[in-house]
């Protein structure tokens, strides 16, 4: 069964550094998402992306965050200047449609900001 893949599985960075989290969504999917889960808390929506632009974003997704689909297969999340509170599991997801559709999640990237 096709799956969403994320790299790296674990990223450690110093506060203030830029990080790029990478994802390869399922190939025939059109909608792409980033969610995050701070340790012990709920999974939170960050952003959705369709037709090469952001379609929805949450309050968490401020100017420090950006997303890009640089080619036909990758979908990236960039955090420009990481803060300690950005430490979390970041999940990429994709779906073929947006109504009545389930999201397929990757295994996540654990981001640790020191």
């Amino acid at each position: 069964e096709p799956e969403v893949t994320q790299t790296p599985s674990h990223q450690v960075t110093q506060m203030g550094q830029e990080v790029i989290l990478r994802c390869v969504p399922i190939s025939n999917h059109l909608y792409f998402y980033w969610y995050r889960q701070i340790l012990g808390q709920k999974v939170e929506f960050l952003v959705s992306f369709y037709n090469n632009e952001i379609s929805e974003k949450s309050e968490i997704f401020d100017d420090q965050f950006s997303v890009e689909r640089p080619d036909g297969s990758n979908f990236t999340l960039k955090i420009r200047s990481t803060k300690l509170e950005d430490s979390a599991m970041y999940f990429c997801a994709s779906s073929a449609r947006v109504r009545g559709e389930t999201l397929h999640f990757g295994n996540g990237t654990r981001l640790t900001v020191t």
Partner: protein
Amino acid sequence: DQQVKQNSPSLSVQEGRISILNCDYTNSMFDYFLWYKKYPAEGPTFLISISSIKDKNEDGRFTVFLNKSAKHLSLHIVPSQPGDSAVYFCAAHGPVQGAQKLVFGQGTRLTINP
């Protein structure tokens, strides 16, 4: 902003018995509900969903019940198996953003005891 709430952080059930996981929501605009299962170090995996036009959906050992008047849904697993031990997340979305903006509950850790 807790639009989706899972009030039981954990649940322990004996193998072979029924597991019942509960979820409440406050946003009456939600029209699609999903249950995801999550193992450690993996992303959430879709389990079962239900549209607001239905009150029950069954898939093998898993049944989801929706009570719209009470804004409550539940997931029944019967019989429970050791492999069902995981964190279960309830999620919901509304008609406008659709799956572009899933709202998750905090999760319930289910432990199946042999």
